[in-house]
């Protein structure tokens, strides 16, 4: 269990964390989601002890570790840019924490062997980080962090420097790994899809504060405010109302509750098609349809259609 209480962290005039409190239950996989500059990485670094908070406390498994250095917190940390020890082989990188702890050679050999197996790098043990791909380097970083049996695993935008395909693979792989090991894990990301896919709980941060903490589904279905609504998925703003593109219905004939709009652009995204529309009052909005729906409606550029929201959200101020 990680408990961060009223954490404040300033860098000069900039307040990175403005009294943030967050609980991470034991065995969970929690995502800290937010735009850059929202304080999510700083919060993770405060938990790890890499950053000292100006106020607030960090409690790990019931122990106040606020004043403790990272060495004695029992955390595993994975960096966005891998932080691989460049002059060491993959094997020595993974063995680092155990070597420092002067564990018996046989134990190190066995544990590193297991971990390399787990991260699918067994054949590359003698390579140097420079000879690995980005995805392989990050798997090595993960094995290195797991080697010392950390109480919590902290990942700072771990897939941020990788290309889209490797990113998706690693994300699934991380989820499976967590299902096997159940290590309490916190992952920082600015990618809502990544957070929704990998985590059981998502903490949405903005401007040094927490906007909402919820499971992915709840976050999407009942966002606490405008910020969360627009950050966790595409959204149309029509007056005070927020409408998801898949909640916009298109009809060929008006039915009283619809408004006239013109098709400005059709964007084919495989199974889905995004339809950019402009209403007769000048309001632009986009609708998300399946390919079959678009074909059934025979939508064309410049065509006049009639739209209505099937579902919309209005936030009370």
């Amino acid at each position, binding site marked *: 269990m990680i408990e961060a209480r009223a954490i404040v962290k300033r860098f000069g005039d900039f307040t990175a964390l403005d009294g943030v409190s967050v609980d991470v239950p034991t065995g969970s996989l929690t995502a800290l989601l937010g735009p850059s500059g929202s304080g999510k990485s700083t919060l993770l670094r405060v938990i790890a002890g890499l950053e000292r908070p100006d106020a607030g406390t960090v409690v790990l498994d019931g122990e106040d570790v606020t004043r403790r250095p990272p060495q004695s917190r029992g955390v595993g940390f994975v960096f966005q840019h891998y*932080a691989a020890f460049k002059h060491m082989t993959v094997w020595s990188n993974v063995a680092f924490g155990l070597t420092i702890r002067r564990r018996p050679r046989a134990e190190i050999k066995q544990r590193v062997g297991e971990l390399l197996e787990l991260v699918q790098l067994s054949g590359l043990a003698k390579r140097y980080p420079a000879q690995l791909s980005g995805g392989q380097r990050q798997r090595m970083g993960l094995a*290195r962090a797991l080697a010392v049996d950390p109480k919590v695993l902290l990942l700072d935008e771990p897939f941020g420097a990788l290309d889209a395909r490797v990113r998706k693979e690693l994300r699934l792989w991380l989820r499976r790994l967590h299902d096997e090991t159940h290590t309490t894990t916190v992952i920082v990301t600015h990618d809502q899809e990544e957070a929704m896919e990998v985590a059981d709980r998502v903490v949405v941060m903005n401007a040094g504060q927490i906007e909402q903490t919820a499971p992915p589904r709840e976050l999407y279905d009942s966002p606490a405010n405008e910020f969360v609504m627009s950050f966790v998925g595409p959204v149309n703003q029509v007056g005070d109302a927020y409408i998801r593109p898949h909640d916009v219905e298109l009809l060929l004939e008006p039915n009283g509750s619809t408004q006239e709009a013109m098709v400005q652009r059709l964007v084919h995204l495989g199974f889905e098609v995004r339809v950019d529309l402009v209403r007769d009052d000048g309001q632009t909005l986009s609708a998300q349809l399946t390919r079959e729906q678009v074909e059934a409606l025979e939508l064309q550029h410049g065509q006049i259609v009639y739209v209505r929201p099937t579902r919309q959200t209005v936030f009370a101020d």
Partner: protein
Amino acid sequence: MIGRYAVRFASLGYLAVLLVAPVGYVFWKTFQHGFGPAWDAVTTPDAVHALKVTLILTAIAVPANTIFGVLSALAIVRHRFPGAGIFNAVVDLPLALSPVVVGLALLLLYGRGGWLGGHGIAFALPGMVLATIFVSLPFVVREVVPVLREIGTEQEQAAATLGASWLQTFRRVTWPAIRWATAYGVVLTTARALGEFGAVSVISGRLTGETESMTLYVQDRYRSFDDVGAYASSVLLALLAVLTLIVMTRLRPKEETQ
């Protein structure tokens, strides 16, 4: 095409005229009458003593400046402290200041009537050691600082989260990353210490057979119209410098070149 040859010709010509010709000429003059006279010239008691003095100066100045250099580089790059900017600038002072001025300053400080005078520092080996350390101080710092900046702090932070103490992190992570920069700094420091003339010339008092280093001995021989002695000693100095370079290149393992 012509442009490329012009650049090549100009740069090689520059090197040939300004570096290779004078040094080559000294070598030629030294061995003009064979190996024997040159050998005799550098094995006189005064020459051997001068060589000893130079080696002692280098043997003290190089380790001192290596340790100081690595620590200073760490301080400049890793630890923000008040006055770091000034400290960083002051480290370069020996490069900007003429060695003669350094020698004079040391003489004023440690000489007769100076603040710290009368402790057998001026006109003796300790003064010469101080002068040599002063002029060869910036090289290790200047080589190590950019490398430390480039490697960043992430590897060190990773080591910390894995349980490594400051010393363990330095030994296993930081040092392997900066050791070749340090080695190169050591080569430059050694070369500078071997070749130092100005500051040592002022502070030593130039007592032949006592406080005369190899460079001072070269000038002494030249002034005494002992051309062979001067040339042979110069060649010896040059060979020492080349030897340092070769040793360092040899030490560098294959793993680092990939």
